Every structure is written in C-alpha cells, then in structure tokens.
C-alpha cells in the first residue's frame, strides 16, 4: 500500500480504492485468460503425447510469463488507447477510469461464463467489445477510432486465414520432404534441425526486437537479427546432434518421424505459449494500465510506459488461472484430439504462434484460439477434407457475433453500477 501511494502520487482513498479495484479486476481477467485460452494452445502437444499435462503446465507458465513480459507491450498500447479517442475524456478522466474498470470486469465475467459453458469465446474479442461498447455509450460513435477498430476486426478475419495457409503449406512440405521420403531418417536429419532452429530464431527475435525495452535494453535491428540468427543456428545444431544420435530402429518409419516431431512439438508448444503471453496478457493489463496512467498523471497522457510489474502481474494471473482451472481443460482436450499427430500438431502450432506473434508486434490484438483453429483446419485441408461439420464454424461465428454486443452491454451495466457506487 505504501508503495502504491508513492507510485501513484496520491493518498486519496477513493483513488486508491479505484486502483485496488483495477488490480483485482485485471487479475481476475488474467485468471480467466489462463483458465480458458491457454488450454487450447497446449492441448495439441498433450494430445499427441509430446508432453504430459504437468510438463505442459510448467512450459506454459514459463513461456506465458516470458511472452507477457518480453513481448507484451505493443498490444497493451493498442488496447489502452488505440480503440477509443482518449482525448475526448481529457476533461473527465474519471469516466474513462471507471469505463476501463467496467470493461475489465465485463470481459472477465463473460469469459468466465463462456468457460463454464464451453463456448469458444475469444478473450481478445471480449475486451475489444467491452471497450468499444463503453466508448459508444458515453460519446456515441465519435468516440470510437473506427479505423483502428476496423483494422482489429480485419485482423480477426485475416489471422485464422493466415494460420490456415501457413499450416497448410508447412504440412504439405513435411509430407513431401519427410513423410513420403524414401529414406525418412535421412530426411529427418536434414530438415528437422531447420524447423527447430527457425522456432528458436523466431522466439528470440520476438524477444529482442523492440521487446527488451521492458528491461531497459534496446537492441538495434541488425544486432537483434544477428543474435536471433545465432540462437537459431545453435538450436539447429543441438537438434541435429540429437537426431543424429538417437536410435529410431525400434520404430517403424512413420512412427519414427512422429517421435522426432514430438520433441519439436515441445518447442512449438513453448512458442505458442510465448506468443499467447505476448498477445493476450494485454487484454488483462491494457485497461488496468490505462487506469494507473490516469491516476498518476491526473490527465490522459498519450505515451506512458507500461510498468514491468503490471506485465508481470498479468503473466502471473494467467499462470494461476492455468494452474487452478486450465489444467482440467488441457487434460480433457488433450485426450480427445488424438487425431492430431506430432507432425500435424507441429504444423498447426508453428503457424499459429508465428501469425499471433507477427500480429502482436504490429499492435493488432488477435484471437489465439481462432488462429489455432484456422491452423488446424489448414492441416486438415492439406490432407483433403472429405467432410466438414459446419456446427463448429457456426459456433465460432456465433461467438464473434455474440461476444461483441454481450461484452459491450455488460460493460455499460457495470459502468452504471460503478458510477452509482462512487457517487454514494
């Protein structure tokens, strides 16, 4: 509390109350993200047997945290001030503060309901719907930065498509060069180190390129490229040694390929968790950071850094959500999706993580779950889709159409409630 008073520069009990509420709501939102979203990202690895669910939890925890802290601030900025015209609130920062609190709680409650009923609701869509709903309620459509919102909605359509496309070609490539190769072990030795190296390169690049400023460490582009390339090559070398030394003679050819991809899938599972942390932590801490920025500055500042401890708190919230609730989802999903073998899981996860990471670097909050679904469909298309049950597609579209108005409407109700409490 002493720290909070010093940091916020005020001891007004109402303001401190708002700050504490922001922390509680932000944490609740992060918990929900961990409880619901992360499971989908990790389940493919558990399903294919690459990871036990306990291992999956540990990897997810470490990588979510790393992604949130090291690469998480771009999207936070978009959520905080990209979608509504914060200048409109210049004379009335308290309204914006309450609005952000309401948006957080509304999105978190909606997510919690969705998790209970197993609805495929995107955390990103919830928070975007909540903030836009609030802006519309207060100032009408002029408050909304429609261009930015349009970009975000466009990215929701593009990200599953991009996920599908990359996953499709990646699986076709693996099939052509490895699965149908005359000598699969030679093909494995030649190609899998490249996949391993590429995964590591992308994680490191996302971390060091414009990422380390959270640690007060800025690398210029060429240094960032060089260091990630070096890490990738080292990773590829280690993987080469691993593949060349392992004895695959116990397994039949295709089983052997899948075994090697199980190991690769551990890397991509980490990659997905990292990308998810980078993208989705913002959904919890973006509005929270906005509240703090207003309290600190008294006015709406355009550029305030997101403090490290807020990113960390978001990450910890996700991890706790994962540990207390998400593991159950991982367990059930993992058991049911055995059709996704390691080569397929690798293709889908690699594609999903890359798309999500690129989008979050561009400041576009996308849905990790929907991108992963796109990627899984992409792998399916590569094998030839004989049958498509439209029920799932329907539920995705319904969740799109439902989430925005529900989260927005809920935000307005909670906002009115908060306002009444403050005025007491």
């Amino acid at each position, binding site marked *: 509390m002493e720290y909070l008073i010093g940091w916020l520069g005020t001891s007004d009990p109402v303001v401190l109350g708002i700050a504490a509420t922001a922390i509680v709501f932000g944490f609740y939102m992060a918990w929900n993200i961990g409880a619901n979203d992360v499971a989908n990202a990790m389940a493919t690895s558990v399903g294919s047997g690459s990871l036990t669910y306990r291992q999956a939890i540990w990897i997810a925890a470490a990588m979510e945290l790393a992604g949130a802290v090291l690469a998480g601030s771009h999207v936070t900025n978009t959520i905080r001030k990209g979608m509504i015209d914060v200048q409109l609130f210049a004379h009335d920062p308290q309204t914006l503060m309450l609005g952000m609190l309401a948006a957080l709680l509304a999105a978190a409650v909606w997510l919690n309901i969705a998790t209970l009923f*197993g609805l495929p609701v995107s955390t990103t869509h919830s928070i975007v719907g909540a903030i836009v709903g609030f802006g519309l309620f207060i100032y009408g459509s002029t408050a909304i930065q429609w261009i930015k919102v349009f970009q975000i909605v466009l990215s929701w359509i593009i990200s599953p498509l991009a996920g599908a496309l990359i996953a499709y070609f990646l699986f076709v490539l693996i099939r052509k060069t490895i*699965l149908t190769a005359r000598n699969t072990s030679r093909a494995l030795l030649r190609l899998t180190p490249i996949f391993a190296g590429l995964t590591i390169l992308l994680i490191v690049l996302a971390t060091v390129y414009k990422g380390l400023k959270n640690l007060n460490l800025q690398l210029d582009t060429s240094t960032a490229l060089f260091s990630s390339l070096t890490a990738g090559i080292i990773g590829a070398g280690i993987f080469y040694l691993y593949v060349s030394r392992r004895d695959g003679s116990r397994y039949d050819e295709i089983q052997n390929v899948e075994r090697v991809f199980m190991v690769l899938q551990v890397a991509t599972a980490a990659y997905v968790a990292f990308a998810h942390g980078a993208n989705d932590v913002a959904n919890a801490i973006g509005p929270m950071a906005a509240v703090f920025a207003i309290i600190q500055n008294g006015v709406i500042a355009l550029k305030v850094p997101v403090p490290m401890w807020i990113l960390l708190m978001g990450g910890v919230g996700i991890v706790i959500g994962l540990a207390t609730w998400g593991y159950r989802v991982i367990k*059930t999903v993992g058991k049911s999706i055995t059709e996704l073998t390691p080569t*397929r899981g690798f293709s889908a996860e690699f594609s999903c993580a890359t798309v999500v990471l690129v989008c979050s670097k561009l400041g576009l909050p996308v849905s990790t779950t929907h991108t992963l679904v796109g990627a899984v469909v992409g792998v399916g298309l590569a094998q*030839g*889709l004989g*049958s*498509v049950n439209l029920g799932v597609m329907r539920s995705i579209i319904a969740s799109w159409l439902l989430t925005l108005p529900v989260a927005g409407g809920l935000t307005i109700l909670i906002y009115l409630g908060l306002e009444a409490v403050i005025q007491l």
Partner: protein
Amino acid sequence: MSILAKLLGSHAPFELLSKHLDKVMLCVDLVKPLLDAASNQNQDEVKRIAEDVFRLEHEADEIKLKIRDHLPKATLLPVSRGDLLNYLKTQDNLADNVEDLVLSVSQLRFPSCWTDGGMHDELMALADYSVSAAKEAANMLGRFERLRMIGFAGDIIEELREIANRIGQIEAKADRKQFKLVQMVLEIQDPDWHFAYSYVLLQVIRSLGKMADNAESMGDYMRLMIAD
C-alpha cells in the same frame, strides 16, 4: 468442451474401424473350419463355431453402432462421411454373410455327388476365393491407416488401387465357381434328395458368393475414400 475437441471430434473413427475389421475377420477365419466340420458331419463342432460367429458378429455390430453414433461429431474428416459409412457397411456385411452361412450350413444335407462328383472340392474352392477376397480387402485398411498417417499422399494410393483390382479379379473367379456349383445342384440325381435340401445348399453357395461381392465393394468404397 473446448473448440479444438469439437473441431477434431472427441473420438477417432479410424481406430474403431480397425477394431471392427478385427471382429469381422475373426468371423471370416471360421468359414473354412465351419464347412469342414459340416462336411465331416461333426454337428457339435458346427454348433460351437456357430456360437462363436454369432458372438463375434454381435460384437462387430456394437462397434459399428459406436462409429455411426459418434461420427457426426468429427468435423475434420480426411474422407467423406458418406464414403466412410458405406465402407463400414460393406465391411460389416462380411460378418453378416458369415452369419447367414452358419444358418444354412447347420441345415446342410449332402447329396451322393458330394464327394464322388467333386461337389465338395468345388464348394471348398469357392470358399477359398471368398475368404481370400475378404483377406485382401482386410489388408486394405492397414495400408489405408498408413496412408492416413502420411497425410494422403504417395505410392500407397496406387498400392490400394491395385489391391482393389486384385479383389475384383478374385470376385470374378468366385462368380464363375458359383455358376458352376449352381449347375451342379440343379443336376443332382439322388433319388432321396429333397428339393428343400437344394434350397439350403444354394443358400450356402449364395452366402459364399456374397462374401466375395462384399469384399469387392469394400475395394470400391476404398477407391472412393482415397480418390483425389
């Protein structure tokens, strides 16, 4: 349930398809022992085999229903749902054919020309064709599983088409054998021979012929499942 589970289906139809085939082939394996037992007038043995067939056929049916009940949930199916269900049906029919065979064989009487006239040998030859057609058909599913693992590309597609062709050739031989046997039945001269016995004998011949037909259909539906 998570969206991924919904998307991929909570249940793998292909594993069950193999389990179903295992039961069906256990029935098929009993065809020749059954005919031998009947031919040796060993009614106890016929009864024992019949019990086994009824049990296996029932078990196969249960797996079949499981596949059918859960198939709508599988969304991303690499093959068409209709083709898969048709294939399942023909695979299941194979067990039904053996069951029909059991019902007729247990009523079988043997004309004087059974051993002397070579009818026994001809019937066993037909059974050979039918069983080997069914065995070729059963081999397809293993190759299909491998094709599925690889992701529906490569030489296995051609390999499967060749197996389907081979089944077609065996079925043609079975057809000719069936024709010959029907003629033999119609030419039975035994004075004690009753028309009803002919009827049962024709049923046996027909069931064996149907087995080869169904094996051929399995090949046809397999072709559809792997078609580009």
